[in-house]
């Protein structure tokens, strides 16, 4: 102890104490502060936002404004949330090819990683619905019949009984739901893209959405069987009438012509 007390007055003593104190607080902080992993995530997130912003200024800003605030050519994206981006870009609707009654589905241009970056950027502009998880959109454990009832009550007016699509005013339309990724159906209900009303969780609960997805999977999915034979588009009496006229009556008239031509005719002079 003598040695230590003897150097107490050493000119560097204060510096050493300061270093020790700093090391102690730093160590304590390191021990008690949130896990360092979280720190790394924050970095990735901000990286994604940065990358998303770059993609946005190239592909989207001309209509939606440089900060996503919107312009005369496109709506503001503040608060639309990541789900809206994942739906619009993930189904190829955005970036839009041309203005018109409605922006249609087309080939997806961005990779899923890029879509995620764009979504991260838009989500950073204001809070909004997030991209659903796998379990939220999986038809497992859902009530198909309940989903059907909900679908007929809320969706069939525009999308038809089993989601074959239908017409809206002035060239707009409710698209067919055949072959649509369940994630996108969920996001569409959540965000209400284009002419569709939105069905937030307060209107259609998470369970309800799952039920609807399960119903669509059952009646309009890849494994759906049509017990009656050809579905004829599932459009109802118009396509049935057309089929009945062309193939029903058409075949019968052909048969009639055949029968009439095959008769014990007297020889023509």
């Amino acid at each position: 102890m003598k040695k230590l007390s003897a150097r107490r007055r050493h000119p560097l003593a204060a510096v050493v104490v300061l270093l020790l104190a700093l090391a102690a607080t730093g160590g304590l902080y390191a021990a008690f502060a949130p896990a360092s992993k979280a720190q790394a995530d924050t970095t990735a997130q901000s990286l994604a936002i940065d990358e998303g912003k770059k993609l946005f200024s190239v592909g989207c800003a001309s209509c939606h404004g440089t900060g996503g605030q919107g312009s005369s050519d496109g709506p503001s994206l503040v608060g639309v949330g990541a789900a809206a981006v994942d739906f619009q870009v993930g189904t190829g609707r955005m970036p839009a090819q041309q203005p018109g009654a409605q922006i249609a589905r087309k080939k997806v241009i961005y990779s899923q990683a890029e879509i995620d970056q764009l979504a991260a950027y838009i989500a950073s502009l204001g809070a909004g619905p997030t991209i659903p998880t796998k379990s939220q959109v999986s038809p497992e454990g859902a009530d198909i019949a309940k989903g059907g009832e909900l679908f007929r009550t809320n969706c069939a007016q525009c999308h038809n009984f089993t989601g074959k699509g239908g017409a809206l005013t002035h060239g707009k339309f409710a698209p067919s739901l055949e072959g649509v990724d369940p994630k996108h159906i969920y996001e569409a209900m959540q965000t209400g893209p284009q002419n569709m009303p939105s069905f937030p969780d307060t209107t259609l609960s998470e369970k309800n959405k799952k039920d609807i997805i399960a119903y669509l999977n059952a009646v309009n999915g890849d494994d759906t069987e049509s017990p009656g034979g050809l579905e004829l588009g599932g459009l109802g009496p118009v396509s049935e009438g057309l089929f009945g006229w062309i193939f029903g009556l058409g075949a019968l008239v052909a048969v009639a012509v055949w029968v009439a031509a095959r008769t014990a005719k007297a020889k023509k002079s």
Partner: protein
Amino acid sequence: MSTTTTSDSRPSREKAPAGEKVADWADGRLGIYSLAKSNMRKIFPDHWSFMLGEICLYSFIIIILTGVYLTLFFHPSMNEVTYHGSYVPLQGQLMSEAFNSTMHISFEVRGGLLVRQIHHWAALIFLAGMFVHMMRVFFTGAFRKPREVNWLFGFLLFVLGMFTGFTGYSLPDDLLSGTGVRFMEGAVLSVPVVGTYLAFFLFGGQFPGGDFVARFYSVHILLLPGIMLGLVVGHLILVFYHKHTQFAGPGKTNNNVVGMPLLPVYMAKAGGFFFLVFGVIAAIAAIASINPIWSMGPYRPDMVSTGAQPDWYMGFSEGLIRVMPGWEINLWGHTLVLGVFIPLVIFPLVLVAIAVYPFIESWVTGDKREHHILDRPRNVPTRTAFGAAWISWYFVLLVGGGNDIWATHFHLSINSITWFVRIGFFVVPVIVFVITKRVCLGLQRRDKDKVLHGRESGIIKRLPHGEFIEVHEPLSQEALHTLTAHEQYQPAEIGATVDENGVERKVKGSERLRSKLSEGFYGEDSQIPKPTVEEYKEITSGHGHH
């Protein structure tokens, strides 16, 4: 008959064969010998278009047969039950017994779905067949005296068929048909003054109530088919009584029928044709789905789907309502819904327009003679143009009825289609009328040319001085006869308005109208005078170039 002659030549003690005994027994009680004698050798002419009516008859029989099978399993009740059948996406849903039993027919009853689909497809084809059959009769003028009554029978069958179809389509109480019934209720409600009472009477109270399926059921399986069956029998009796019409041709006159006898040729053909019709309809029912009620779900008045249309034969009424602007008048606390009421009034008029035409035509021509020789449509341009215009009118309305399907499948705006139908409702028939008439006149000119100058042989000849001519071959006598067999009416003049004493007679308005119409039907602009014998002789006597 040959059987009676053989029995005469046989010693009377010998026992007659069993068949003869049965025939004798029946003859003594039913008089079948004379019936058979007069009808077994009935002649029917051969043409495929004369078999369109048979398609209707056979599909009607198929509908009755399959319909009987369906009644064995269908419960016409609107009591609410919970579904426990094998179709998973509806399990646990509440529905009416009618829907439940239709699901049962479709998924659990052996052959139920196939029979349901045969029944429904046959209904669509029955109506389509009647439509085409009616048009065949129309365009060939087969409705003329003495067949006016039979024309009306046929027309009534078509209209009753529409309503039988509609009531049948409503029975399963599914979401699609329920929307159709709601539509009908709305139309009834729009009738001024009595509409509400009528609707309450029909549904036994507020829509949908608990009665309409049972009521529609008795209408669908008993009342309407009963009347239709009677009309079909009457229709056939009249066909037998009038004998069948035939197209003009050598040896065919207004007083004979050239063709094959009922027995054995036509019996064999018609019998075989029945099975062909049954086969085609069954094949279609096995291939293609129709009215998949499991996809539509049970009816609930708070639900609706897009693409909710009636079957095709009611489609024109759907078109009327879809394109009608939503006008309404409010007076003294009452609403007159013109947007629905006007279509309701036009709906029967569309049908009546074609039904009354034969009577208008016979009034204009003033022709009281019987006609058993059919017209070629081109030789009666005004009638043909009217028929084509009517079909186009009907088709425009069908486009209106399916405007949403047109919009989605042809990437059009539904509003533009609606406007097209609104304008087309007035304009398209006129355009089609004019064009069809021109086409008919053109064909008449071509016929005339063929008669006078012969058929183009395709052989080009070079004359010594270098001119090229095409060699025309004269037609055969048969062809000449067929092309010139039709008679042409002359426009009816208003007779002298002053009699021999110089007294002016009053000319009635109807007489003036008739003369005007007659000029329009048969005037210079409406038919090409057919070649006369003199013209033919002059041209073929060697003075002509070819």
